[in-house]
């Protein structure tokens, strides 16, 4: 079977996004766009984490710290009167990338369990650092006002406009990461995950590649944070809580790691489930737990392979 071109997945996401938008409006459910924007943003954050977990084999348990970083970059700049999104959003990416470049050399010295622990430790440090920032709301959080401004016609305080902007940015970012996955750099990352010692014996200074992956993933997650700040109109240290990092990991693993599209599916699924179930019962995490166990047992490659359940005879790729 001939593989689909790189842009097919991005095009599918864009198509589904616009179709959803049209249906939501046609059925008088325009309020859905808010949830949809949130899902897209978390989806992008999960996809950026997949670059680390699924490609480079670095299981980060602190990835949400870059959501916090990007979110506060927007919140603080807005508070200080710098409202242009053309500046805010790139700054969110750069600051997140710089943070990763700073802590990367420390956390990348370790592997496996210690990498999990150290990324968690740094995200907790950032969490408590922002809890103490009283100028920017401390643990109460910070209102993002006004929203990022681009051009006059684009008003992000309108949920519809925001959804379209988020959809377009997410599609561009997805495409870029799809390219990365198939690039020479992407292959090096896969090699690092499977056998780092072998990579070194071939001549790769694996540390450099892993650090670059860490920085890229952080910058993309920072962009997601910047958009999340606009979606919720509010940033707080909770953005970078360890529970949030855990949710991102769940999205990646639930959807199917190492595939990019898997984590997006995972994000859609998890947040929809949360949205629907939390209206029925406050015990919804219990149901989620049961579901995770089932997926882990029956779909070890994640939800994206759900079709195997319906065609048991054929081979699973």
């Amino acid at each position, binding site marked *: 079977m001939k593989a689909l071109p*790189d842009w097919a997945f991005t095009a599918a996401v864009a198509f589904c996004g616009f179709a959803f938008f049209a249906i939501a409006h046609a059925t008088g459910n325009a309020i859905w766009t808010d949830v949809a924007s949130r899902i897209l943003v978390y989806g992008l954050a999960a996809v950026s984490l997949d670059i680390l977990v699924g490609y480079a084999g670095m299981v980060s348990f602190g990835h949400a710290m870059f959501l916090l970083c990007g979110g506060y970059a927007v919140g603080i700049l807005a508070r200080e009167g710098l409202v242009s999104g053309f500046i805010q959003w790139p700054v969110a990416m750069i600051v997140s990338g710089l943070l990763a470049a700073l802590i990367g050399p420390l956390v990348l010295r370790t592997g496996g369990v210690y990498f999990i622990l150290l990324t968690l430790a740094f995200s907790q440090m950032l969490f408590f650092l922002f809890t103490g920032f009283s100028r920017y709301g401390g643990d109460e959080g910070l209102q993002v006002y006004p929203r990022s401004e681009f051009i006059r016609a684009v008003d992000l305080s309108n949920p519809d406009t925001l959804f379209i902007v988020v959809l377009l940015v997410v599609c561009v970012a997805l495409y870029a990461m799809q390219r990365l996955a198939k690039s*020479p750099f992407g292959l*090096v990352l896969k090699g690092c995950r*499977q056998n780092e010692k072998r990579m070194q014996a071939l*001549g790769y200074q694996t540390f450099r*590649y892993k650090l670059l992956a860490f920085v890229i993933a952080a910058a993309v997650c920072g962009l997601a944070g910047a958009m999340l700040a606009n979606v919720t109109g509010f940033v707080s240290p909770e953005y970078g809580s360890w529970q949030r990092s855990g949710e991102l990991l769940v999205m990646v693993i639930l959807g199917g790691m190492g595939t990019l599209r898997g984590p997006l599916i995972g994000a859609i699924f998890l947040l929809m489930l949360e949205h629907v179930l939390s209206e029925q019962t406050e015990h919804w995490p219990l149901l989620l737990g049961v579901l995770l166990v089932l997926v882990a047992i029956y779909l070890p490659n994640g939800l994206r392979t759900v079709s195997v359940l319906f065609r048991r005879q054929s081979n699973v790729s």
Partner: protein
Amino acid sequence: MSLEKPVLSVQNVSKSFGGVQANRDVSLDVLPGEVHALIGPNGAGKTTLISMLAGEVTPNDGAIYLDGHDVTGLNAPQRAKRGIRRSFQITSVFAELTVLENATLACQALSGRATYRTWRPIAADRQLRDSSLAALDKVGIAALADRPAAALSHGEKRHLELAMALVGEPRLLLLDEPFAGMGADETSEMVERLRKIKGTTAMLLIEHDLDAVFSLADRLTVLVLGTPVATGDPDSIRSNAEVHAAYFGKKPVTPC
């Protein structure tokens, strides 16, 4: 031959792990195009020595020279770039990648900055694809290019490993038990393969299959308890009394 400058020169290298002395005062050299075999009973420190030469383990003492340059302070990737390549005792290919991708990783390791490219797809690089296929062809497995490496037989994986080590004409090949786990047919095929390379690439070979060792090696060094007890051509090693005592248990050598 003795006038030739050695490719690899190991001088008085020692290594201990905690209280265990793995290598003590090892000196040896490998001449251009030569197959130098390292034999010795289990626990003689052969693999530790190879790991030190590859740059994965730092010696406590002594120096390692490649083409006259001191490489003792270089790490594994730096030495690989200078031309020291190794294969592993336990087959180490990238199981989830295709055979071609395995070779591609070996090829692009030498291309420097190109490996940091994140936009251009790897498939678009014709030159890289050609050189990767050529590397596979060298060991006769180009036909398997599109198979996942995990689907290869043990012998085929061994050949893939050799192909990856041979990319870019290394100065020195470190082969850690290349025939381990192979059947008789596969072994003789691999011996033939190595014989073809012999003369162009210097090799340091660890092997327990003495038949294969004696048919391939120009010189042998016998390692006992971390120290070389004898170095010489196959005939002199065969008849060396000290070697018999330490390694062959005083019986005359009949390569089995």
